[in-house]
Structure formats: C-alpha cells, structure tokens
C-alpha cells in the first residue's frame, strides 16, 4: 500500500504533463488530490503499524546480476518521516495556489520531488535509495531556476552542485561497502550486518556521513541552504527545508551510522581535545547551531532569517544523532518532524503571505507597512510559528529540543553551554524578525503600500491551520511518535550502533 505513495506521485506528474486542458484550476485540484491521496496512505499506514517494527512493503528482484532488489520497507522512523512528507506535500500545494506561470510543469516537478522523497524514506535497498536520492536533485533545480526569485539561477546551480557532490561521496561509500562485503546484495539489512574492518569504517563513515550531511546543512557545507531557500518559490522552500534536508539527516542515521558504526569509535588519540569522528561531528553540529542562529540575528532579508534558522535547527538534529543514546536519537527524529513542520510554516508566511503581497522581504522596509494590521492572519501565524520555533512548551520544538538536550547532557555535558547560547539566540532572532516585520513603527503613521494587499486566501489559512495543528499535536503528544520510534531504534538494524557505545 505504502508503495503507492511513490507511484501515485509520479503518475500524477505524468498526468499533469500530458493534460491537454489549459485550465489552471484543474491542474491545482489534480495536484492537491494527488498529494491528499498520498497523505491519506501514509496516515493509514502510520495508524496501522503502531508497533514501529520493520515491515516489508514490496520486494522484487530488480537487477539480478548485481543482487539488487526493488525493496521498500518501513519502520517507525520512516513512517514518522513519511507522515511529515505527506503533510508538507499537501500544504505545499495549498501555498502554491497562486502559481500560474507554467503551472503544469510546476506541479509536475513538485510531484516528482515528493514522489522521490517518499522513495528515499521507503527504500531498503541502498541502490534504490540512492536512485531516489538523486532523482530529488533534478526537480529542485528546475523549481528554483524557473519559478524562483533573488539570484535564482545561481542559487539553483549551487544547490544542485552541493547536493551532487554530497551524493557522489555517498556513492563512493556505497559502492565500497557493496564491494567489500562481497555479499552480492545491496540490502541495508545485509550490509549493516556485515562486520566491516574498523580501518575501512574509519574512512567510509565520515565520507558517507558528510555526503548525507551536506544535504542536512552540516556546517561548513551548509552554504547552499540559505541561498537555495531564499531563491526558491514558496512551495519549494517548504519542501527543501521541510523534507529534503531531512533526507540528509535520515541518510546519516539510517545509512552512514548503521553501516559503519565503528566509524564512531574513538581514534585512540586526541587532536585539540577531539578524539573521534563522533566528537568532530558533534562539534560541527554545535557550530552549526550557533553560527546559524547568530547569522540569522543580523539578516536584513526576512527569508534569510528563516534560511539561517534552518541551519541552526538542523544542527540540533545532527547533534542529537551524535549523542548515541536513545533519548537523543529519538529527539533527533522528533526534531526532524518538528523542524519540517515549522520551517514549512515559516517559509509559507514569509514567502507566500508576505513577500507575494508586499514584493519585498527587506525587514526595514516591511516595518513601516504595519503588516500586523494589514495582514493580521500572517502576523498571527508568524507569532505562533515563532513561538514554536523558539521552543515554547506545547509546541513540537520544545519536546524535540528537550529530548536532544537531555541526550547531550548524558554524552557531551561540556557542549550544553554552547547549545544554551544557541537556544537564546534562537529566541532573539525570531523576536527581532517578528518585531521588525510585523510590529515596527507603531508610533509613525502607516505608510500606504503602493497597491492594496490582497487578503489572505482560504487555501493559505487552511495550510497554516494544518501545520499549526500538526506542531501542537507533536508537541502535546510526542508519545504518539516516540512509541513507534523507540522500537525502530531497538531493532536489529541499529544493533551495531547500540553495541558501539550506546
């Protein structure tokens, strides 16, 4: 059943391209239907498989001479992320309701992207996973280069090259893993069970981890992200920050860490107090948290604030992975969901609700417009999303970051201080953006915008509502997700990881 999420998305894209009608409304409804159906499928699967253990969706022999299977499996972690993809997919369409330039191609690329993301989260065969992972790259390029804004061609190319270099590193690691194991299988289960020699893991692990980490915004390879997010059209930003960056984090956890758990083991010597790849990536993650937050604090462009905040939040995920304890890892997965929802929401407010109406994202220019009065719904949504992003209790960000912090407390007590500074900076940049964009200049008379701002439309309200509700659900009932994530983390797949210092 779950496999149909992939097929339906690709089919939807094909139907859109071949659609003879020029009616924009029909195209939108078709795209919305496609994403709604895939969302319904993921939701059903999520509710059906409450045990969180791995189950097989489909498994056919594909390329027999290489032992490659078309194998889709899901467990609690992938189910959680599939659900996130479903939600973001639907909301992305809702927030793209105004696109009318080459609309068929827009939604066709959009659906291909969504389908490939589902594919990555479902693949259990590493070759298949890589195929979907690469398919993600191409629609991103065209979505940004055709429908984007600020320096779109530059940003699109930069993003694609970064992603491609990342996947090239992953490819080297995967081929090496396949060849060294010599087991004539690309199945993650088989390869993760193979005891690779430690010195091989020592170079393969960082290679694959950084390869995936590039897409997850790992500092200092994050620079594609802010420019890419800013240039992308709203729906693409939502997908990019919401789910595509999660692909990287998912790959780090699911592929790099399960295949090469000994790569995390100590080197046996210390350089500047750092004694293993685990320490290296933990430090890089913390730098990412601080750097993203501090840079977000001084941006003039509203969308750049959100772009850099993504780097900061993705840092939490990577740090959570490096804690290597159950609470930290589950926190990382919940943070993937939380950041997916919130980044989607924030980009929707900035890109669709504000920029599409005011045609500027310059914070000093937005202030005098009194947007809190002109666009009260946008202001409301941003305040709520900002609160959630800061980590106020009751929202998803709080639950996730708390778990990660507890995990860090166990593994890296010295880093807590820096993470704390990052959290405070996180409050500050959201506060500053909120104040400058929506609530500045109350004393001065309102500057009339050059043209009246159209009111917030129904699809936008609906999309915002869905995302806010999702965040609240994750924040108030994290148990719903944890109950499927924990069994997945305790499954045989992560056995190597658990032995290596968990």
């Amino acid at each position, binding site marked *: 059943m779950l496999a149909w999420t992939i097929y339906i998305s690709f089919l939807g894209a094909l139907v859109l391209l071949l659609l003879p009608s020029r009616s924009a409304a029909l195209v939108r409804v078709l795209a919305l239907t496609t994403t709604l159906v895939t969302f319904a499928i993921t939701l059903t699967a999520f509710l059906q498989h409450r045990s969180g253990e791995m189950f097989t969706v489909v498994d056919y022999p*594909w*390329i027999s001479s290489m032992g490659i299977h078309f194998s889709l499996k899901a467990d609690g972690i992938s189910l959680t992320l599939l659900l996130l993809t479903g939600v973001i997919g639907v909301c992305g369409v809702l927030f793209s309701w105004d696109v009318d330039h080459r609309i068929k191609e827009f939604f066709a690329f959009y659906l291909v992207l969504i389908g490939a993301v589902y594919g990555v989260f479902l693949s259990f065969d590493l070759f298949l996973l890589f195929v979907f992972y690469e398919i993600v790259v191409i629609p991103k390029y065209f979505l940004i*280069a055709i429908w984007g804004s600020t320096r779109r061609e530059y940003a699109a*190319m930069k993003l694609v090259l970064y992603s491609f270099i990342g996947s090239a590193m992953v*490819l*080297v690691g995967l081929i090496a893993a396949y*060849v060294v194991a010599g087991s004539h299988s690309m199945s993650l289960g088989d390869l993760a069970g193979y005891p690779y020699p430690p010195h091989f893991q020592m170079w393969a692990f960082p290679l694959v981890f950084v390869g995936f980490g590039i897409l997850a915004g790992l500092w200092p390879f994050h620079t594609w992200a802010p420019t890419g997010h800013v240039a992308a059209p709203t729906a693409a930003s939502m997908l990019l920050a919401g789910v595509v960056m999660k692909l990287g984090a998912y790959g780090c956890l699911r592929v790099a860490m399960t295949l090469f758990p000994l790569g995390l083991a100590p080197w046996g010597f210390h350089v500047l107090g750092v004694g293993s790849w685990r320490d290296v990536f933990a430090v890089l993650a913390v730098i990412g948290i601080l750097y993203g937050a501090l840079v977000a604090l001084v941006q003039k462009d509203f969308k750049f604030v959100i772009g850099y905040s993504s780097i900061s939040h993705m840092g939490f995920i990577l740090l959570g992975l490096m804690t290597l304890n159950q609470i930290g890892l589950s926190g990382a997965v919940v943070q993937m969901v939380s950041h997916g929802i919130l980044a989607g929401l924030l980009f929707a407010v900035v890109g669709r609700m504000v920029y599409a109406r005011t045609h500027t994202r310059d914070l000093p220019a937005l202030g005098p417009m009194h947007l809190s009065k002109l666009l009260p719904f946008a202001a409301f949504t941003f305040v709520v999303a900002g609160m959630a992003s800061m980590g106020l209790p009751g929202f998803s960000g709080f639950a996730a970051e708390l778990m990660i912090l507890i995990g860090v407390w166990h593994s890296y007590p010295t880093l807590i201080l820096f993470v704390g500074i990052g959290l405070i900076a996180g409050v500050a940049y959201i506060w500053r953006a909120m104040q400058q964009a929506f609530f500045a200049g109350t004393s001065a008379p309102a500057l009339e915008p050059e043209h009246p701002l159209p009111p917030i439309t129904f699809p936008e309200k609906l999309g915002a509502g869905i995302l806010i509700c999702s965040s609240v659900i994750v924040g108030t009932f994290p148990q719903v997700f944890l109950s499927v994530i924990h069994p997945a983390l305790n499954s045989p797949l992560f056995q190597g990881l658990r032995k290596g210092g968990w």
Partner: protein
Amino acid sequence: MNAIHYGQLLQLAWPEIILTIAALIALAADLLFLRRSPSHVRFLVAASIASIGCIAAIFKLLPGSSEGALLGGVLLSNPATHLVQIALLVIAILTLFLSVDSAFTDHVGEFVLLILLATTGMMFLVASQDLLVIFISLELLSLSVYILAGFDKRSPRSSEAALKYFLFGGMSAAFMLFGFSLLYGFSNSTNLVQIANAIHGVPLNPLVILAIVTTVIGFGFKIAAAPFHFWAPDVYQGAPTPSAAFIASGSKVASFFIFFQVLVIGFAGAEGSATLHHFQSGWVPVIVAVAVVSMLLGNLVAITQTSLRRLLAYSAVAHAGYMLLAFVAHSEQSLAALLYYVATYALATLGIFGILAVTEKHLGNDKISGLAGLSRRAPFLSACLFIFVLSLAGIPPLSGFFAKFLLFSAVLAVSSGSKLLIGLIIFAIGMSAVSLYYYLRVLKSAFVADPPVDAAKVPAPVLMQLVIGLLAAGVVALGCAPDLILNQILNVIHASGL
C-alpha cells in the same frame, strides 16, 4: 600454417557480405532510378534498402548462428562478437533514419554506401584477433568516416573537419602500424594470443613498451581520449549531423571493444602496475594516465563551450576517460560494464544529434543559448533532450547512471584495497559531479530561459520524432531494467571466454 577453408570463411562472413550487397543495391537503386526524385524520397528508399540489409545481417547473428574461428583468430565468430555486431547494426539503422530528413547532400546513394561500408569495417574489426585484419578493418572504417565527415561539400567547416580528421587519423594509424610491426618482429606472429605468449615476462622489453604506447596512441585517437582528441570538437561541429552522430556512436562502440581485446589479450602479462609502491611498466599505467587526463580535460573544457556540438565532443572525451577505467580493471565484469556503458552512451549521443538535426534546421546554429525556450517550442523534443542529457550526466534512473554504477563497482571489485584504484574512482565520481554543471546549462537553456519574442513552434518530421522517441525510450528502459541486456552481455562474455 593450416589451409584456409573458403566455405567456412563464407559462413562466418555472411553478415558482412549481406551488408556489402545491400550497400551496392542501395547505391545502384539510387543512381539508376531515383536521380530526379526529391532528396528525402531518395534518402527514404536508400535507408530502407540499407536497413533491410542490416536487419538480414542481424538475423544471421542471432543466437544459434554459426560460431567458429578461422585460422586461429583471423576471423572470429562467437556470442560476444555477435552481440557487439548487432549493436553496431542497430546504430547504423538508427543513424540512417536520423539522416532521412537532412538536405546536406545530393549524393544520397554514396552516403548510405559509406555508412554501410564503415559498418562492415567495424564488424570485421570486432571479429578479429589478428593485427593485420584489425588494421585493415580499422582503415576501412576510418576512410569511410573521413569522407562522411566531409560529406557536406558546401560547408567549409565540414571540409575542414574532414581534413583535420584525416590528418590526425593518418598520423595515428602510422603510429599504430609502427607498433604492430614491432610486435610482429618481436613475436613473429600477428595473432594476439601468440604475441602475448612472446612478450610476457618481467621486466618488459623496451620495444614492447614502445609498441604499447603506439597502440594506445592509435586507438586513443579512435576513442577520442585526451590528448589524442584534437579532431573531436571540429568533427563534431563541422561534420553533417548524421555523420557526426555515427562517428560519435558506432565507431566508439567498435573501437572500445577491440581496444580492450588488443590490450587484454595481446598484451596479457604486460599489464604492469601503476601503484606508487610497486610501479611496473606496462599498459595499465599508460591507460591510467590517459584516463585521468581525459576526465580532467574533457570535463573542464566542456564547461566553457557555447556550442552544443563542441560540448558533446568534450563530454565524449570525458566519457572516454570513464570508460578507460574498465581497462584498468580488465576483468569479465569490467568488460560487461564497458559494453553496457558504451552502448547506452551511443544511444544518448545519437539522440542528442537527432535533436540537433531538427533544431539546427530551424535555429540555424548549434549554440546552447539558441535552445532558449525549446521546452515550449518543441515539448516532445525537449523532453527527450532532458532524458538524453541527464543520462549522460549519470542521473538515475536513466541508463547513464547504471552504466557508471556498474563500471565503478566492477573496478572497485578488483581493487582489493589498492589506493590507486579507489582514488581513481573517487576522482571519476567527483568529475561526474563537475559534468553536471555543463549538462545542466544545456537543460537550463531549453527549460528555464524564455523563448525569443518572435519564436514559433519548432516543427519536427514524424519519422525523426519516432526515432528520437525510440532512443529516449531505450535510454529509460535500459536504466530502469538493466537486466534487459546486462545478463545477456555477461552470458556472452562468459560463453566467449573473454
């Protein structure tokens, strides 16, 4: 020396004979009956006759046909040669139908004749393990394609291309012949297996090293590997589109296959080793050097090109570099990977040239910027362009990706921890990331840029669309289901004992 069996010769050479007869019939029909018909009727008739010949030859080559070896390898007939020959014939048919709507020449019969003669040359080329026959068939191929490159008499660029191709080709053939003569002097035989028996032993005789280098120069020219690639950009740009397509696809397939055979069989035991710690002279270090230079130069120079044909030429240099890695591994797996790679590469290249044939007619040049807005002026063609270009770039699920995957894993499989091979693979994969930049520039022009204000739809003849569509379907199908031909390739290689 055993006596030659003419009966056997006839039996083994049937496909080539059929092809030659078809070529003559096509020429005669064109010259005798169709002189006054419009050019595309002439093309259609000649191409149909030629294709019937090709198809008849393919039937002769299907599994179950006669196998054997004449005079210990002068003319071979085994499943592997059959498979490669079928691929060559398919490419010839596709090239012929891609040329049907072109108007670069009045000498239709001669054009078709030359395509078929070149194909005959290639078929003999891949079916021999004897230096003399290899050289003669290579010359038959080369002379035909020199003329094909200059076939557009009205275009100075075409003549320039042909002249350059001829001069470089003549020189490299001289090198190769020199090397062959050394080998003959050394081993007293022109048979590859006997040569290998004579030359193995460490350290290698300096004459053998010289022979290795000159052989690599000779074949390196045919496969457009750097630094023997200087003809490629000019020929790709100047030659008439069908000729360029043929040179870029068919002649590559044949040359790569026989190059592999000559090195692996003829110089067996002279591989040498290119690792830093135990460097040994032999052909592997030479190939490694050529491969690295090709990948580097091809990819970097392609970035700056503004003409799509020149870009294809440099990307061909880069692809030659990737494919040479299969030589470094020289295993059964890597030969399979090489064949898969070169076949799918040929399909994608043919497709792009087919699209160029249509667009150049309407846009007047092959500038990448000229493709602006093609996605709205010719949606079907640009969809196919999308597939071909991304396949060359190695994006899954297209066949170009699987070819790379297969090739790289075949090379790593024999590496057994050799830092050099791992380093080469990392370099190759890194370079293919670079290549994405210039491939995306082509697609950016076609899909992102807006069409010129007065742009009309680009009409494409139905037959062209059909052929291009078939090629695109092939590229997608082979990528999604590599088993379609991969098992076949592995089986025939195994059965032929290569």
